[in-house]
């Protein structure tokens, strides 16, 4: 486990050693803050962060791949992958460390949003249950996007290719689910809607914790991590 934490720590710190990490945090905070200011912090609005969670799921569709795009692609481009591949660590440890590093940065990126909770507390009397489930949803969705980005990053040396392919994958998934469910109709549409990340995430924002959603999002993340390890391992055999 120690090599995993070492790699995760380095990976997370690397975001803060370059401007990219700070810019990502600033953009996310700015966009979500604007949304909060325009939609929630208004007289008569309910004291919830539902709007913030809703917009976060969309923002993360672009921000999470931007975080994950460098994870392995940059190692391959700069040649440091060779250093990792000849270090006494397994491919599993390397990939998991990189993923956890990205998740760590993602959590730090989310942390300024706790200010919104403080604002709600100062201005009204919010319910903390939906806020907690909302955060759980954002974190699970972010983890899924990051794992998919990790996978595309393992497939290429080009960070932009990784970024775009992750975004396109999830956009096409949502479009495909919507159109597919509409065409299939009942009773199959329900099963097809199960593939929609945004629909599952929406329930968290409403304060619903559905075990099925939690398992689906975590299983999706695990699946992409396994694929990433397979891609890294295949480099040795190709």
């Amino acid at each position: 486990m120690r090599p995993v934490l070492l790699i995760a720590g380095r990976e997370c710190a690397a975001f803060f050693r370059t401007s990219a990490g700070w810019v990502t945090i600033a953009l996310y905070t700015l966009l979500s803050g604007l949304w909060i200011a325009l939609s929630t912090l208004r007289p008569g609005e309910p004291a919830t962060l539902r709007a913030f969670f809703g917009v976060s799921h969309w923002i993360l569709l672009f921000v999470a791949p931007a975080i994950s795009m460098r994870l392995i692609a940059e190692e391959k481009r700069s040649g440091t992958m060779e250093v990792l591949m000849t270090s006494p660590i397994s491919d599993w440890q390397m990939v998991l460390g990189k993923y956890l590093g990205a998740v760590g940065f993602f959590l730090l990126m989310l942390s300024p949003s706790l200010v919104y909770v403080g604002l709600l507390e100062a201005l009204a009397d919010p319910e903390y249950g939906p806020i907690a489930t909302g955060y759980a949803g954002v974190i699970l969705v972010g983890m899924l996007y990051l794992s998919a980005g990790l996978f595309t990053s393992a497939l290429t040396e080009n960070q932009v290719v990784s970024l775009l392919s992750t975004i396109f994958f999830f956009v096409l998934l949502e479009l495909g689910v919507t159109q597919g469910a509409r065409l299939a109709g009942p009773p199959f549409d329900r099963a097809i809607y199960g593939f929609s990340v945004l629909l599952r995430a929406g329930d968290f924002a409403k304060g619903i914790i559905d075990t099925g959603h939690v398992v689906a999002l975590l299983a999706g993340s695990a699946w992409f991590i396994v694929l990433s390890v397979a891609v890294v391992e295949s480099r040795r055999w190709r």
Partner: protein
Amino acid sequence: MIELRDVQKHFGTVHAVRGVSLDVPAGQIVGILGPNGAGKTTTVRMIAGAIPPSSGSVRVSGLDSVRDTIEVRRAIGYLPESAPLYREMKVGDYLAHRAGLQGLRGTARRRAVDSAAEQCHLGEVMRRRTGQLSKGYRQRVGLASVLLHDPKLLILDEPTSGLDPEQIAETRGLIRALAGRRTMLLVSHILPEVERVCDRILLFARGRVQADGPPGTLMGELPGAGRYTVEASSAGSLGASAEMVFGALPGVESVEATPLNESWTRYLIAFAPSAGDQRESIALAARSANLLIRELRPQATTLEDVYLRLMAYAENDPGLSSRAAPAAGAA
């Protein structure tokens, strides 16, 4: 320390390494030479555990590079070409990170970093980001990073690639100092570097070892090693021409004469490569024939001569097997 047995490596349809077998005993410094695409880097990557062989076996310190890959990697310090580093990290942080990956913790980790930094003279740049360093310093950081766990085997792939002459001299000195009690594989294009540093040379071409031996042996056995340049005058000779006198020496294969002026002629006398030192016999023959000699010197054979000749040989023999080329000695 290293045992390769009939190692082959394919990348799709490309046959990068073709049946390489060799043994490297502990403490030996081995230079690996060859043109681009010869299979040098692929071979050292297999030894370092980065990639497995397609067939055959690679063992390091008795450990199989595929089955015991983590242990093999722990025993090796491998510096890939161009010394890749995390450019955003400070030198000290980078070395500490690499030491951590080698399983070092706490005081042992700090000591390893200090020791490697001292060996590679990095004291003054420990707080600078690696991306801000000159190529020479980056190379030193790379070298330091492979010393942290005090490996018994060092593999350095083109350690002076892209450096200026001053940096090359510095790095070469550092490599010599690091060799010490370690086994070292040094992949290089710079022939004088290999000639000066290494006990043994492996010449690769077309995925095979074309020659294997100590630099002196390789150079000594190359046709042309037994060649001598003699500048002589027949002015006071006893009748026989210098060409006849030198041509009558035992073991002489040819004598070429090039007149320099009315009195002096330069002779290029070629003996069989195994003839040994013939300077004395040439001088005695000249004295007995009353020839005047103003210069007598063996022709220097460089590693470059060996390299170019063997590469030409490999080029002209596409069906070459893993046997050594005729001019090469065996280690």
